[in-house]
């Protein structure tokens, strides 16, 4: 008969997973748990930043899937023939679109905005570190400029995209003219809507600075929006190349 030990060795320290996390905050602007204050560099701050970044990576993969499906539709639709009712033969209705040259300039604007976004992201982290070191709350007005510049470039890009739409329409390519032009409007529009969301978040971050929200909160917002913004820039380059080289 098998015998079982009546006691087994006790492992006092549990295996630590990714856990050990403090409870999440109920509010988006600080007052997080862990008993400590929500300051830049505090445990609660690091936790919030890590979580927000993880969430942003997940969100980016969801948005990527949207454009993956558009791409697959693009490739499939491009290869499809259609029947010409007059001749009864199979023809292709995909008319190559000559993209407005303005889009090249727009690409440049968005890439530059990606740089200013990164500068803004680093700047506020430095500012926050400086605030902690000096333990003073004086706001440095000159520091808001990178953020403002990014917002301005983002809005300029979006406005110029609208102008590019008008130029495209002026050459006779409307949404329903050809599947190729349908995709141009669809891809640029979908990208524009996603970028517009990021512009609103940056405006919110700017407003948060003006009304004196805690700087640690703004660091988190600008950090993850920076990731998102870079993704938008890469995504635009991809969309642009797709429209340009697979037309």
């Amino acid at each position, binding site marked *: 008969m098998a015998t079982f030990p009546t006691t087994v060795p006790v492992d006092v320290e*549990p295996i630590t997973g990714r856990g050990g996390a403090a409870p*999440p905050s*109920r509010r988006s602007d600080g007052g997080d748990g862990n*008993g400590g204050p929500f300051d830049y560099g505090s445990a609660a701050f690091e936790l919030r930043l890590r979580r927000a970044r*993880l*969430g942003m990576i*997940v*969100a980016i993969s969801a948005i990527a899937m*949207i454009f993956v499906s558009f791409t697959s539709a693009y490739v499939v639709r491009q290869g499809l023939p259609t029947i010409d009712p007059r001749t009864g033969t199979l023809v292709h209705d995909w008319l190559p679109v000559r993209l407005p040259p303005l889009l090249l300039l727009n690409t440049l604007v968005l890439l530059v905005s990606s740089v200013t976004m990164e500068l803004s992201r680093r700047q506020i982290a430095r500012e926050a570190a400086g605030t902690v070191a000096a333990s003073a709350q004086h706001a440095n007005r000159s520091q808001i400029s990178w953020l403002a510049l990014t917002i301005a470039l983002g809005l300029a890009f979006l406005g110029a995209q609208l102008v590019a739409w008008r130029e495209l329409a002026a050459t006779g390519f409307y949404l329903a003219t050809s*599947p190729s032009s349908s995709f141009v409007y669809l891809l640029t529009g979908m990208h524009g809507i996603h970028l517009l969301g990021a512009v609103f978040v940056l405006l919110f971050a700017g407003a948060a600075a003006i009304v004196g929200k805690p700087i640690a909160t703004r660091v988190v917002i600008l950090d993850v929006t920076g990731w998102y913004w870079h993704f938008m820039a890469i995504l635009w380059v991809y969309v642009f190349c797709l429209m340009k080289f697979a037309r």
Partner: protein
Amino acid sequence: MATRDFTAHESHAHAAPQGFIRKYVFSLDHKVIGLQYYFLALTAVFVGMFLSLLMRIHLIWPTASIPLLGEIKPETYLTLLTMHGTIMVFFVLTTAPQGGFGNYFLPIQIGAADMAFPVLNMLSFWVTLLGYLVMLSAFFVAGGAPLHGWTGYPPLSAVPSAGPGEGLGADLWVTSIALFCIGALMSALNFITTTLDMRAKGMTLMRMPLTCWAWFVTAILGLLAFGVLFSAGILLLLDRNAGTSFYVPLVVVNGQMVGHKGGSPLLWQHLFWFFGHPEVYIAILPAMGLCSQLLSVFSRKPIFGYKAMVYAILAIGLLGFMVWGHHMFMSGMSPYTAFAFSIMTMAIGVPSAIKTFNWLGTLWGGRIRFASPMLFAIGFVSLFVSGGISGPFLAQPVLDIPLHDTAFVTGHFHLIMGVASIFGIFAATYYWFPKMFGRMMNERLAQAHFWLTFIGTYCIFMPMHYAGMAGQPRRYSQFTTLHYLEKLIPLNEFITFAAFVTIAAQFIFVFNLFWSMKAGKKAADNPWEATTLEWITATPPPHDNFGGQTPVVYNGPYEYSVPGAPKDYVMQTDPSIVAAAH
């Protein structure tokens, strides 16, 4: 209870919101949001069930006059079919197991105080509710609800003149689906982040209950699948309203040439089923996870092959993305492509069989307690096997082509995706009701509910397989006049009567649910003597789940009948006995 003194360290206690609106309507608490999802699904399931009953009545009494509706016309039948499918798949099978129970119990089971992003969580629910209301509103607009089936194949779904309900009704349908996608994506984001980043100390991935694994993988599937459906829906909306030709070829619809050319209905089918097949697993995986949990708890045995179960869930999730083509064997497909999809589909049988044998292995030699949650879990295994066994048949193009448009497929997917998942929801309700509402459900009513539903659903869906093999087509509003199907009329009458009885039995459940909330026996903190974290906290759980403490986890989730332990179960937070199994 002794289980309450788990090792914990102090953490900041959140103030619970005051006032009815903040507490129960616009709540950020994952538990309230979970209940909101649950009750949304409960109303939706009754709408969907009512529609199916009308269909069953019409099939055997085609000229019967229904009160308020009158005689059901063929196009009305198609409307019923479309809305039944859509509401059931999206607002019941996707909403209750993941949005409902996942929201409520994932944070508690991993020892977190809430979801990672509570505001986003609230938004997910409200967008989903909005989607549901838009879906229902399609019934009340001019032309009524659409008739293109839950799969919405163009050109029917893309041309407003294709039929009644294809005008505004179909626009509302697509809008509702797009809203649902947004809600589901936000929810998936929350689930993934929460699982990866908010587990309590000691809660390693391989110590998570299988329910959490299932919710986690389901969220990944949702994250990758709903974006594709969203894109497909945008293209459909453009085809319908902006004159584009993504899906609509040059075709004559209702005697009129459409203003489109060159589009491909197959493009929609590929995009739709790339979502649609993972959706099947989105509906069934949470039920699988729950079933694994319950079989272990009520057999008083560790789950058989925990790691194999985890890898099987992951394998099913991965393979689920590679098999969408098997829905399209009938749509025209290169035989080589069909062969590849066929092989991949049959490969899913392997992880599914691993799970099934592990469930049976868990039951083997256990001291089984036949409480109502256990009955439904065993019922789930039964339905999963019965419905799953016809999967390898349908996976083969040569068999699928004759069977695809028959009632055989209706029987197949209702057993495995519909009823099996619903059994998961029932099991979860009976199992977690004491934790959610602090009272026990009436066991006698629950057992009556189980037997009536279990036998009833088999009586409904098993005969459909035979009807299908005999050639009874699906989606036809009327076949009583078809000579070759005359002999099937008694069988169909039997199915309809079985549906009446089964639907009537669901009122036992609803009565039990609401009556027990008020008058059920008071529940102990851990009435099932289970080990996972939701059973160490108070009943119902406090606002931050653990009353200002954070649990520390020492054990795996299935430590039952551990040799040398004082009781036949060891809580996950119990440091005194570390299971020899690990």
